[in-house]
Protein backbone atom coordinates (compact mmCIF):
# COMPACT_ATOMS: atom_id res chain seq x y z
CA UNK A 1 0.00 0.00 0.00
CA UNK A 2 1.45 3.34 -1.01
CA UNK A 3 1.88 6.01 1.68
CA UNK A 4 -0.56 8.26 -0.18
CA UNK A 5 -3.30 5.63 -0.15
CA UNK A 6 -2.62 5.19 3.56
CA UNK A 7 -2.90 8.93 4.21
CA UNK A 8 -6.11 9.30 2.15
CA UNK A 9 -7.55 6.26 3.88
CA UNK A 10 -6.72 7.57 7.35
CA UNK A 11 -8.32 10.96 6.66
CA UNK A 12 -11.43 9.39 5.16
CA UNK A 13 -11.52 6.72 7.87
CA UNK A 14 -11.30 9.27 10.70
CA UNK A 15 -14.51 10.93 9.47
CA UNK A 16 -16.25 7.60 9.05
CA UNK A 17 -15.05 6.47 12.49
CA UNK A 18 -16.42 9.58 14.23
CA UNK A 19 -19.81 9.10 12.59
CA UNK A 20 -19.79 5.37 13.30
CA UNK A 21 -19.38 5.98 17.06
CA UNK A 22 -22.80 7.65 17.07
CA UNK A 23 -24.29 4.74 15.12
CA UNK A 24 -22.80 2.16 17.47
CA UNK A 25 -23.91 4.01 20.61
CA UNK A 26 -27.45 4.46 19.33
CA UNK A 27 -27.68 0.84 18.26
CA UNK A 28 -26.30 -0.65 21.46
CA UNK A 29 -28.39 1.49 23.81
CA UNK A 30 -31.58 2.26 21.87
CA UNK A 31 -31.44 -1.06 20.00
CA UNK A 32 -32.25 0.12 16.51
CA UNK A 33 -30.33 1.14 13.40
CA UNK A 34 -30.79 4.87 13.11
CA UNK A 35 -30.78 5.68 9.41
CA UNK A 36 -31.29 9.37 10.25
CA UNK A 37 -27.79 9.53 11.72
CA UNK A 38 -26.35 10.55 8.36
CA UNK A 39 -28.64 13.58 8.41
CA UNK A 40 -27.16 14.71 11.73
CA UNK A 41 -23.82 14.75 9.90
CA UNK A 42 -25.23 16.91 7.09
CA UNK A 43 -27.19 19.18 9.43
CA UNK A 44 -24.11 19.61 11.63
CA UNK A 45 -22.07 20.68 8.60
CA UNK A 46 -24.72 23.14 7.42
CA UNK A 47 -25.41 24.60 10.87
CA UNK A 48 -21.66 25.23 11.24
CA UNK A 49 -21.67 26.85 7.78
CA UNK A 50 -24.58 29.12 8.71
CA UNK A 51 -23.15 30.08 12.10
CA UNK A 52 -19.70 30.64 10.64
CA UNK A 53 -21.18 32.85 7.91
CA UNK A 54 -23.18 34.78 10.52
CA UNK A 55 -20.06 35.34 12.64
CA UNK A 56 -18.22 36.47 9.50
CA UNK A 57 -20.86 39.13 8.90
CA UNK A 58 -20.72 40.29 12.53
CA UNK A 59 -16.93 40.34 12.67
CA UNK A 60 -15.21 39.99 9.24
CA UNK A 61 -11.81 39.59 10.90
CA UNK A 62 -12.91 36.17 12.20
CA UNK A 63 -12.88 34.81 8.65
CA UNK A 64 -9.17 35.58 8.06
CA UNK A 65 -7.40 32.20 7.59
CA UNK A 66 -5.68 30.80 10.67
CA UNK A 67 -2.05 30.03 9.83
CA UNK A 68 -1.87 27.32 7.15
CA UNK A 69 -5.57 26.47 7.41
CA UNK A 70 -8.31 27.51 4.99
CA UNK A 71 -10.65 28.85 7.67
CA UNK A 72 -10.62 31.55 10.29
CA UNK A 73 -11.73 31.63 13.93
CA UNK A 74 -15.35 31.82 12.82
CA UNK A 75 -15.43 28.06 12.05
CA UNK A 76 -14.06 26.66 15.33
CA UNK A 77 -16.34 29.03 17.24
CA UNK A 78 -19.30 28.05 15.04
CA UNK A 79 -18.43 24.36 15.55
CA UNK A 80 -19.30 24.60 19.27
CA UNK A 81 -22.67 26.15 18.47
CA UNK A 82 -23.28 23.61 15.70
CA UNK A 83 -22.54 20.68 18.04
CA UNK A 84 -25.03 22.06 20.57
CA UNK A 85 -27.71 22.68 17.92
CA UNK A 86 -27.23 19.27 16.25
CA UNK A 87 -27.57 17.64 19.66
CA UNK A 88 -30.76 19.67 20.18
CA UNK A 89 -32.02 18.45 16.80
CA UNK A 90 -31.40 14.82 17.82
CA UNK A 91 -33.19 15.38 21.15
CA UNK A 92 -36.11 16.93 19.27
CA UNK A 93 -36.28 13.92 16.94
CA UNK A 94 -36.30 11.65 19.98
CA UNK A 95 -38.95 13.69 21.79
CA UNK A 96 -41.26 13.89 18.76
CA UNK A 97 -40.67 10.55 17.09
CA UNK A 98 -38.47 7.86 18.62
CA UNK A 99 -39.43 8.45 22.28
CA UNK A 100 -43.20 8.11 21.73
CA UNK A 101 -42.61 4.96 19.63
CA UNK A 102 -40.45 3.46 22.39
CA UNK A 103 -43.08 4.32 24.99
CA UNK A 104 -45.66 2.38 22.95
CA UNK A 105 -43.33 -0.60 22.93
CA UNK A 106 -42.65 -0.20 19.22
CA UNK A 107 -40.61 -3.01 17.69
CA UNK A 108 -37.13 -2.32 16.42
CA UNK A 109 -38.27 -2.42 12.80
CA UNK A 110 -40.81 0.34 13.48
CA UNK A 111 -38.06 2.57 14.88
CA UNK A 112 -35.86 1.77 11.85
CA UNK A 113 -38.65 2.72 9.43
CA UNK A 114 -39.32 5.87 11.46
CA UNK A 115 -35.64 6.77 11.15
CA UNK A 116 -35.92 6.37 7.35
CA UNK A 117 -38.83 8.81 7.40
CA UNK A 118 -36.98 11.24 9.64
CA UNK A 119 -33.96 11.06 7.33
CA UNK A 120 -36.08 11.96 4.30
CA UNK A 121 -37.71 14.90 6.07
CA UNK A 122 -34.42 16.22 7.40
CA UNK A 123 -32.61 15.87 4.07
CA UNK A 124 -35.36 17.55 2.06
CA UNK A 125 -35.62 20.32 4.62
CA UNK A 126 -31.89 20.89 4.30
CA UNK A 127 -32.15 21.03 0.52
CA UNK A 128 -35.10 23.43 0.79
CA UNK A 129 -33.18 25.81 3.06
CA UNK A 130 -29.69 25.64 1.54
CA UNK A 131 -30.42 24.31 -2.03
CA UNK A 132 -28.55 21.31 -3.44
CA UNK A 133 -25.61 23.39 -4.66
CA UNK A 134 -22.34 22.35 -2.95
CA UNK A 135 -20.99 24.77 -0.36
CA UNK A 136 -17.59 25.32 1.27
CA UNK A 137 -16.35 26.78 4.54
CA UNK A 138 -13.68 28.76 2.68
CA UNK A 139 -13.35 29.93 -0.92
CA UNK A 140 -9.58 29.82 -1.37
CA UNK A 141 -7.65 26.84 -2.67
CA UNK A 142 -5.42 25.14 -0.16
CA UNK A 143 -1.99 23.89 -1.18
CA UNK A 144 -1.22 20.37 0.05
CA UNK A 145 1.88 19.84 2.18
CA UNK A 146 4.43 17.27 1.03
CA UNK A 147 6.14 15.09 3.61
CA UNK A 148 7.39 11.47 3.77
CA UNK A 149 6.27 10.93 0.22
CA UNK A 150 2.64 11.90 0.81
CA UNK A 151 0.53 14.97 0.16
CA UNK A 152 -2.13 16.23 2.54
CA UNK A 153 -3.72 19.61 3.16
CA UNK A 154 -3.27 21.22 6.59
CA UNK A 155 -7.07 21.04 6.98
CA UNK A 156 -7.03 17.27 6.43
CA UNK A 157 -4.16 16.78 8.88
CA UNK A 158 -5.98 18.86 11.47
CA UNK A 159 -9.11 16.74 10.96
CA UNK A 160 -7.06 13.61 11.56
CA UNK A 161 -5.63 15.02 14.76
CA UNK A 162 -8.99 16.25 16.05
CA UNK A 163 -10.61 12.88 15.24
CA UNK A 164 -7.87 11.02 17.15
CA UNK A 165 -8.24 13.31 20.19
CA UNK A 166 -12.04 13.14 20.16
CA UNK A 167 -12.12 9.35 19.86
CA UNK A 168 -9.66 8.88 22.72
CA UNK A 169 -11.64 11.38 24.83
CA UNK A 170 -14.93 9.61 24.00
CA UNK A 171 -13.44 6.22 24.85
CA UNK A 172 -12.13 7.50 28.20
CA UNK A 173 -15.48 9.17 28.89
CA UNK A 174 -17.36 5.91 28.30
CA UNK A 175 -14.92 3.68 30.22
CA UNK A 176 -13.88 5.91 33.12
CA UNK A 177 -16.81 8.11 34.14
CA UNK A 178 -20.04 7.48 35.99
CA UNK A 179 -22.05 8.56 32.95
CA UNK A 180 -20.08 6.17 30.73
CA UNK A 181 -20.64 3.32 33.19
CA UNK A 182 -24.36 4.09 33.16
CA UNK A 183 -24.34 3.99 29.34
CA UNK A 184 -22.60 0.61 29.30
CA UNK A 185 -25.01 -0.69 31.92
CA UNK A 186 -28.11 0.43 30.00
CA UNK A 187 -26.59 -1.02 26.84
CA UNK A 188 -26.17 -4.44 28.43
CA UNK A 189 -29.31 -4.73 30.56
CA UNK A 190 -31.67 -1.72 30.82
CA UNK A 191 -33.87 -3.40 33.46
CA UNK A 192 -30.96 -4.22 35.75
CA UNK A 193 -29.54 -0.73 35.19
CA UNK A 194 -32.82 0.69 36.52
CA UNK A 195 -32.61 -1.49 39.64
CA UNK A 196 -29.08 -0.24 40.26
CA UNK A 197 -30.32 3.35 40.10
CA UNK A 198 -29.55 4.37 36.52
CA UNK A 199 -32.20 6.62 34.98
CA UNK A 200 -32.49 5.14 31.48
CA UNK A 201 -34.31 8.19 30.06
CA UNK A 202 -31.49 10.47 31.14
CA UNK A 203 -28.91 8.05 29.74
CA UNK A 204 -30.76 7.88 26.40
CA UNK A 205 -30.74 11.69 26.17
CA UNK A 206 -26.99 11.68 26.79
CA UNK A 207 -26.51 9.09 24.04
CA UNK A 208 -28.37 11.32 21.57
CA UNK A 209 -26.30 14.33 22.61
CA UNK A 210 -23.01 12.44 22.31
CA UNK A 211 -23.89 10.69 19.04
CA UNK A 212 -25.23 13.84 17.36
CA UNK A 213 -22.31 15.93 18.63
CA UNK A 214 -19.83 13.50 17.08
CA UNK A 215 -21.90 13.37 13.88
CA UNK A 216 -21.74 17.16 13.67
CA UNK A 217 -17.97 17.06 14.07
CA UNK A 218 -17.73 14.41 11.32
CA UNK A 219 -19.90 16.62 9.11
CA UNK A 220 -17.69 19.67 9.66
CA UNK A 221 -14.61 17.58 8.83
CA UNK A 222 -16.23 16.19 5.68
CA UNK A 223 -17.18 19.75 4.75
CA UNK A 224 -13.61 20.92 5.24
CA UNK A 225 -11.92 18.06 3.40
CA UNK A 226 -14.48 17.46 0.64
CA UNK A 227 -17.53 19.74 0.38
CA UNK A 228 -20.90 20.39 1.98
CA UNK A 229 -23.96 18.89 0.27
CA UNK A 230 -27.43 17.96 1.54
CA UNK A 231 -26.72 14.35 0.52
CA UNK A 232 -23.35 14.14 2.28
CA UNK A 233 -24.92 12.28 5.21
CA UNK A 234 -26.80 9.67 3.26
CA UNK A 235 -23.70 9.08 1.10
CA UNK A 236 -21.73 8.29 4.28
CA UNK A 237 -24.42 6.05 5.75
CA UNK A 238 -23.28 2.72 4.29
CA UNK A 239 -19.61 3.21 5.28
CA UNK A 240 -20.80 4.30 8.75
CA UNK A 241 -22.83 1.14 9.30
CA UNK A 242 -20.07 -1.02 7.82
CA UNK A 243 -17.57 0.55 10.23
CA UNK A 244 -19.86 0.18 13.27
CA UNK A 245 -20.58 -3.47 12.50
CA UNK A 246 -16.97 -4.24 11.61
CA UNK A 247 -15.77 -2.73 14.89
CA UNK A 248 -18.46 -4.53 16.88
CA UNK A 249 -21.69 -2.90 17.98
CA UNK A 250 -21.19 -0.99 21.23
CA UNK A 251 -17.42 -0.61 20.91
CA UNK A 252 -16.09 2.94 20.55
CA UNK A 253 -12.52 1.97 19.61
CA UNK A 254 -14.05 -0.69 17.36
CA UNK A 255 -16.06 1.97 15.50
CA UNK A 256 -12.93 4.04 14.91
CA UNK A 257 -10.89 1.03 13.83
CA UNK A 258 -13.76 -0.07 11.60
CA UNK A 259 -13.88 3.44 10.14
CA UNK A 260 -10.16 3.40 9.43
CA UNK A 261 -10.36 -0.02 7.75
CA UNK A 262 -13.32 1.08 5.59
CA UNK A 263 -11.52 4.34 4.81
CA UNK A 264 -8.38 2.48 3.77
CA UNK A 265 -10.39 0.00 1.71
CA UNK A 266 -12.15 2.89 -0.05
CA UNK A 267 -8.96 4.83 -0.79
CA UNK A 268 -7.26 1.66 -2.07
CA UNK A 269 -10.20 0.94 -4.34
CA UNK A 270 -10.30 4.50 -5.67
CA UNK A 271 -6.59 4.36 -6.51
CA UNK A 272 -6.38 0.83 -7.87
CA UNK A 273 -9.77 0.14 -9.43
CA UNK A 274 -11.73 3.36 -9.85
CA UNK A 275 -13.76 5.91 -7.88
CA UNK A 276 -17.05 4.45 -9.12
CA UNK A 277 -16.38 1.31 -7.02
CA UNK A 278 -15.91 3.23 -3.80
CA UNK A 279 -19.42 2.64 -2.41
CA UNK A 280 -19.31 -1.02 -3.38
CA UNK A 281 -16.32 -1.62 -1.11
CA UNK A 282 -18.14 -0.66 2.08
CA UNK A 283 -21.03 -2.89 1.04
CA UNK A 284 -18.67 -5.80 0.28
CA UNK A 285 -16.91 -5.40 3.63
CA UNK A 286 -20.29 -5.28 5.40
CA UNK A 287 -21.47 -8.50 3.74
CA UNK A 288 -18.22 -10.30 4.51
CA UNK A 289 -18.30 -9.29 8.20
CA UNK A 290 -21.91 -10.37 8.57
CA UNK A 291 -21.06 -13.76 7.07
CA UNK A 292 -17.73 -14.38 8.78
CA UNK A 293 -17.85 -12.56 12.12
CA UNK A 294 -21.26 -10.97 12.77
CA UNK A 295 -20.19 -9.65 16.17
CA UNK A 296 -17.36 -7.67 14.60
CA UNK A 297 -13.86 -7.16 15.91
CA UNK A 298 -14.69 -6.08 19.48
CA UNK A 299 -18.40 -6.83 19.77
CA UNK A 300 -20.09 -9.01 22.34
CA UNK A 301 -21.07 -12.51 21.25
Amino acid at each position, binding site marked *: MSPQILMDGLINGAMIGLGAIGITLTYSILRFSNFAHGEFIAWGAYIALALSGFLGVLAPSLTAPLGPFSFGWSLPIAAFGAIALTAALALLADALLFGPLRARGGASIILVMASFGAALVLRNLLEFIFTSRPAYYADGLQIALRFLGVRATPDALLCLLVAAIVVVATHLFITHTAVGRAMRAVSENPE*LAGIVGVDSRKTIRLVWILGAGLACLAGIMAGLVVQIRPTMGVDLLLPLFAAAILGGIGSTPGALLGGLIIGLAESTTVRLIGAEWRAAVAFAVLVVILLVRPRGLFGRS
Partner: protein
Amino acid sequence: MSAETVAPSGLETHGLVAGYERDLPIVRGVNLSVGAGEFVVLLGPNGAGKSTLVKAIAGLVPIHHGSVRFNGEDITAAPAHEKIRRGLAFVPQTENVFATLTIEDNLRLAADLLPKRVRARRIAELYAMFPDLAAQPRRPAGQLSGGQRQMLAAARALIVQPSLLILDEPSAGLSPKMATEVFSRLKAINASGVTIILVEQNVKSALAVASRAIILVEGEARHEGPAATLADDPIIAELYLGAARART
Protein backbone atom coordinates in the same frame (compact mmCIF):
# COMPACT_ATOMS: atom_id res chain seq x y z
CA MET B 1 -53.78 -11.39 55.31
CA SER B 2 -54.31 -8.25 57.33
CA ALA B 3 -52.13 -5.21 56.92
CA GLU B 4 -53.13 -3.77 60.28
CA THR B 5 -49.75 -4.36 61.92
CA VAL B 6 -48.01 -1.86 59.72
CA ALA B 7 -44.54 -0.78 60.73
CA PRO B 8 -43.99 2.87 59.72
CA SER B 9 -40.40 2.14 58.73
CA GLY B 10 -41.11 -1.03 56.80
CA LEU B 11 -42.80 -2.13 53.61
CA GLU B 12 -46.51 -2.60 53.12
CA THR B 13 -48.68 -3.45 50.17
CA HIS B 14 -52.44 -2.99 50.05
CA GLY B 15 -54.55 -5.01 47.64
CA LEU B 16 -51.69 -5.25 45.18
CA VAL B 17 -52.71 -6.46 41.73
CA ALA B 18 -49.83 -6.78 39.29
CA GLY B 19 -48.81 -8.55 36.10
CA TYR B 20 -47.37 -7.92 32.67
CA GLU B 21 -50.85 -7.67 31.17
CA ARG B 22 -53.73 -5.80 32.75
CA ASP B 23 -56.26 -8.50 31.87
CA LEU B 24 -54.09 -11.29 33.21
CA PRO B 25 -52.88 -10.34 36.70
CA ILE B 26 -50.46 -12.74 38.32
CA VAL B 27 -50.53 -11.09 41.74
CA ARG B 28 -54.12 -10.77 42.90
CA GLY B 29 -54.76 -8.46 45.80
CA VAL B 30 -51.79 -9.10 48.06
CA ASN B 31 -51.64 -7.35 51.43
CA LEU B 32 -48.19 -7.52 52.92
CA SER B 33 -46.57 -5.95 55.93
CA VAL B 34 -42.88 -6.29 56.66
CA GLY B 35 -41.43 -4.43 59.62
CA ALA B 36 -37.98 -2.90 59.88
CA GLY B 37 -35.28 -5.47 60.63
CA GLU B 38 -37.42 -8.48 59.77
CA PHE B 39 -36.23 -11.40 57.67
CA VAL B 40 -39.26 -12.58 55.73
CA VAL B 41 -39.31 -15.44 53.28
CA LEU B 42 -41.94 -15.71 50.53
CA LEU B 43 -42.78 -19.31 49.80
CA GLY B 44 -45.14 -21.01 47.44
CA PRO B 45 -45.34 -23.35 44.50
CA ASN B 46 -44.07 -22.47 41.05
CA GLY B 47 -46.35 -19.95 39.39
CA ALA B 48 -47.69 -18.66 42.71
CA GLY B 49 -46.61 -15.14 41.83
CA LYS B 50 -43.69 -14.75 44.24
CA SER B 51 -41.23 -13.36 41.70
CA THR B 52 -43.89 -11.16 40.08
CA LEU B 53 -44.81 -9.75 43.50
CA VAL B 54 -41.24 -8.73 44.36
CA LYS B 55 -40.63 -7.42 40.84
CA ALA B 56 -43.79 -5.30 41.12
CA ILE B 57 -42.56 -3.93 44.46
CA ALA B 58 -39.18 -3.18 42.82
CA GLY B 59 -40.85 -1.34 39.95
CA LEU B 60 -40.22 -3.88 37.19
CA VAL B 61 -43.74 -5.24 36.70
CA PRO B 62 -46.76 -2.95 36.16
CA ILE B 63 -49.03 -2.50 39.18
CA HIS B 64 -52.69 -2.32 38.12
CA HIS B 65 -54.38 -1.83 41.49
CA GLY B 66 -53.40 -1.32 45.10
CA SER B 67 -50.45 0.45 46.60
CA VAL B 68 -46.93 -0.03 47.90
CA ARG B 69 -45.70 2.06 50.81
CA PHE B 70 -42.10 2.06 51.94
CA ASN B 71 -40.92 3.82 55.08
CA GLY B 72 -44.23 5.68 55.16
CA GLU B 73 -44.04 6.93 51.55
CA ASP B 74 -46.23 5.82 48.66
CA ILE B 75 -43.84 4.34 46.08
CA THR B 76 -46.46 2.59 43.92
CA ALA B 77 -45.72 4.65 40.82
CA ALA B 78 -42.02 5.30 41.48
CA PRO B 79 -39.74 3.93 38.75
CA ALA B 80 -37.14 1.29 39.66
CA HIS B 81 -34.21 3.72 39.59
CA GLU B 82 -35.84 5.89 42.26
CA LYS B 83 -36.58 3.02 44.64
CA ILE B 84 -32.91 2.19 45.20
CA ARG B 85 -32.33 5.85 46.07
CA ARG B 86 -35.01 5.50 48.75
CA GLY B 87 -33.28 2.47 50.24
CA LEU B 88 -35.13 -0.38 48.55
CA ALA B 89 -32.67 -2.72 46.83
CA PHE B 90 -33.63 -5.65 44.65
CA VAL B 91 -31.51 -8.56 43.42
CA PRO B 92 -33.12 -10.47 40.53
CA GLN B 93 -32.82 -14.22 40.18
CA THR B 94 -30.98 -14.25 36.83
CA GLU B 95 -28.93 -11.75 34.85
CA ASN B 96 -28.25 -9.93 38.09
CA VAL B 97 -24.76 -8.65 37.22
CA PHE B 98 -23.44 -6.71 34.25
CA ALA B 99 -21.45 -9.46 32.56
CA THR B 100 -19.34 -7.16 30.36
CA LEU B 101 -18.41 -4.86 33.25
CA THR B 102 -15.66 -5.74 35.69
CA ILE B 103 -16.42 -6.54 39.32
CA GLU B 104 -15.10 -3.10 40.23
CA ASP B 105 -17.31 -1.36 37.65
CA ASN B 106 -20.36 -3.30 38.82
CA LEU B 107 -19.75 -1.97 42.32
CA ARG B 108 -18.86 1.54 41.14
CA LEU B 109 -22.08 1.73 39.18
CA ALA B 110 -24.03 1.43 42.43
CA ALA B 111 -21.53 3.59 44.34
CA ASP B 112 -22.12 6.41 41.82
CA LEU B 113 -25.38 7.07 43.71
CA LEU B 114 -23.39 8.01 46.82
CA PRO B 115 -21.56 11.28 47.51
CA LYS B 116 -18.07 11.20 45.91
CA ARG B 117 -16.20 11.35 49.22
CA VAL B 118 -17.67 8.08 50.52
CA ARG B 119 -17.62 5.96 47.33
CA ALA B 120 -14.13 4.44 47.68
CA ARG B 121 -14.63 3.76 51.39
CA ARG B 122 -17.95 2.04 50.79
CA ILE B 123 -16.52 -0.17 48.03
CA ALA B 124 -13.62 -1.09 50.35
CA GLU B 125 -16.14 -2.05 53.05
CA LEU B 126 -17.97 -4.32 50.61
CA TYR B 127 -14.68 -5.89 49.50
CA ALA B 128 -13.95 -6.61 53.16
CA MET B 129 -17.36 -8.24 53.47
CA PHE B 130 -16.88 -10.28 50.26
CA PRO B 131 -13.13 -11.08 50.04
CA ASP B 132 -13.65 -13.29 46.95
CA LEU B 133 -14.56 -10.18 44.99
CA ALA B 134 -11.67 -8.15 46.34
CA ALA B 135 -9.19 -10.68 44.97
CA GLN B 136 -10.10 -10.03 41.35
CA PRO B 137 -11.59 -6.54 40.89
CA ARG B 138 -10.66 -6.27 37.17
CA ARG B 139 -12.28 -9.57 36.24
CA PRO B 140 -15.39 -9.27 34.01
CA ALA B 141 -18.47 -10.32 35.97
CA GLY B 142 -19.45 -12.63 33.12
CA GLN B 143 -16.52 -14.90 34.00
CA LEU B 144 -17.68 -15.46 37.61
CA SER B 145 -19.31 -18.63 38.90
CA GLY B 146 -22.99 -18.65 39.85
CA GLY B 147 -22.21 -18.22 43.54
CA GLN B 148 -19.75 -15.41 42.93
CA ARG B 149 -22.32 -13.63 40.78
CA GLN B 150 -24.86 -13.83 43.60
CA MET B 151 -22.26 -12.40 45.98
CA LEU B 152 -21.47 -9.59 43.56
CA ALA B 153 -25.16 -8.84 43.03
CA ALA B 154 -25.73 -8.73 46.79
CA ALA B 155 -22.62 -6.60 47.34
CA ARG B 156 -23.73 -4.15 44.65
CA ALA B 157 -27.19 -3.92 46.22
CA LEU B 158 -25.67 -3.27 49.65
CA ILE B 159 -23.34 -0.47 48.48
CA VAL B 160 -26.00 2.19 49.03
CA GLN B 161 -26.76 0.79 52.51
CA PRO B 162 -30.41 -0.01 51.76
CA SER B 163 -32.84 -0.47 54.60
CA LEU B 164 -34.64 -3.21 52.64
CA LEU B 165 -33.01 -5.91 50.51
CA ILE B 166 -35.27 -8.08 48.34
CA LEU B 167 -33.73 -11.18 46.76
CA ASP B 168 -35.36 -13.43 44.19
CA GLU B 169 -34.17 -17.03 44.64
CA PRO B 170 -30.49 -16.32 45.30
CA SER B 171 -29.77 -20.04 45.79
CA ALA B 172 -31.17 -21.11 42.40
CA GLY B 173 -28.62 -23.11 40.44
CA LEU B 174 -26.04 -23.08 43.22
CA SER B 175 -24.36 -26.08 44.79
CA PRO B 176 -25.66 -26.98 48.29
CA LYS B 177 -22.41 -25.70 49.79
CA MET B 178 -22.62 -22.37 47.99
CA ALA B 179 -26.33 -22.07 48.80
CA THR B 180 -25.55 -22.54 52.49
CA GLU B 181 -22.89 -19.83 52.18
CA VAL B 182 -25.42 -17.46 50.59
CA PHE B 183 -28.02 -18.07 53.32
CA SER B 184 -25.42 -17.58 56.02
CA ARG B 185 -24.37 -14.26 54.43
CA LEU B 186 -27.99 -13.15 54.26
CA LYS B 187 -28.44 -13.92 57.94
CA ALA B 188 -25.39 -11.80 58.74
CA ILE B 189 -26.68 -8.95 56.57
CA ASN B 190 -30.03 -9.09 58.36
CA ALA B 191 -28.24 -9.11 61.72
CA SER B 192 -26.57 -5.84 60.69
CA GLY B 193 -30.02 -4.21 60.58
CA VAL B 194 -31.06 -4.66 56.94
CA THR B 195 -34.64 -5.86 56.42
CA ILE B 196 -34.73 -8.83 54.05
CA ILE B 197 -37.49 -10.24 51.88
CA LEU B 198 -36.40 -13.49 50.31
CA VAL B 199 -38.19 -15.43 47.60
CA GLU B 200 -37.09 -19.07 47.81
CA GLN B 201 -37.84 -22.54 46.54
CA ASN B 202 -35.33 -24.01 48.97
CA VAL B 203 -37.96 -24.13 51.74
CA LYS B 204 -35.97 -25.79 54.55
CA SER B 205 -32.92 -23.55 54.25
CA ALA B 206 -35.03 -20.41 53.88
CA LEU B 207 -37.16 -21.20 56.94
CA ALA B 208 -33.98 -21.88 58.90
CA VAL B 209 -32.68 -18.34 58.41
CA ALA B 210 -35.92 -16.30 58.18
CA SER B 211 -37.91 -14.97 61.11
CA ARG B 212 -41.27 -15.07 59.36
CA ALA B 213 -42.73 -16.78 56.31
CA ILE B 214 -45.53 -15.78 53.98
CA ILE B 215 -47.05 -18.36 51.65
CA LEU B 216 -48.36 -17.33 48.27
CA VAL B 217 -50.69 -19.53 46.28
CA GLU B 218 -52.21 -18.52 42.94
CA GLY B 219 -51.25 -14.89 43.35
CA GLU B 220 -52.70 -14.53 46.84
CA ALA B 221 -51.04 -14.48 50.26
CA ARG B 222 -52.76 -17.44 51.90
CA HIS B 223 -50.86 -17.89 55.13
CA GLU B 224 -48.14 -16.44 57.28
CA GLY B 225 -46.42 -17.23 60.53
CA PRO B 226 -43.12 -17.47 62.37
CA ALA B 227 -40.63 -19.40 60.25
CA ALA B 228 -39.76 -21.82 63.03
CA THR B 229 -43.42 -22.76 63.60
CA LEU B 230 -44.07 -23.13 59.90
CA ALA B 231 -41.08 -25.38 59.44
CA ASP B 232 -42.45 -27.80 62.01
CA ASP B 233 -46.08 -27.66 60.95
CA PRO B 234 -46.88 -30.73 58.82
CA ILE B 235 -50.42 -29.60 58.07
CA ILE B 236 -49.25 -26.26 56.69
CA ALA B 237 -46.52 -27.96 54.71
CA GLU B 238 -49.02 -30.38 53.23
CA LEU B 239 -51.72 -27.80 52.58
CA TYR B 240 -49.68 -24.97 51.15
CA LEU B 241 -46.51 -26.49 49.84
CA GLY B 242 -47.00 -30.17 49.09
CA ALA B 243 -50.61 -29.90 47.92
CA ALA B 244 -49.96 -26.86 45.81
CA ARG B 245 -46.94 -28.53 44.25
CA ALA B 246 -49.01 -31.58 43.47
CA ARG B 247 -51.47 -29.43 41.51
CA THR B 248 -48.77 -27.88 39.31
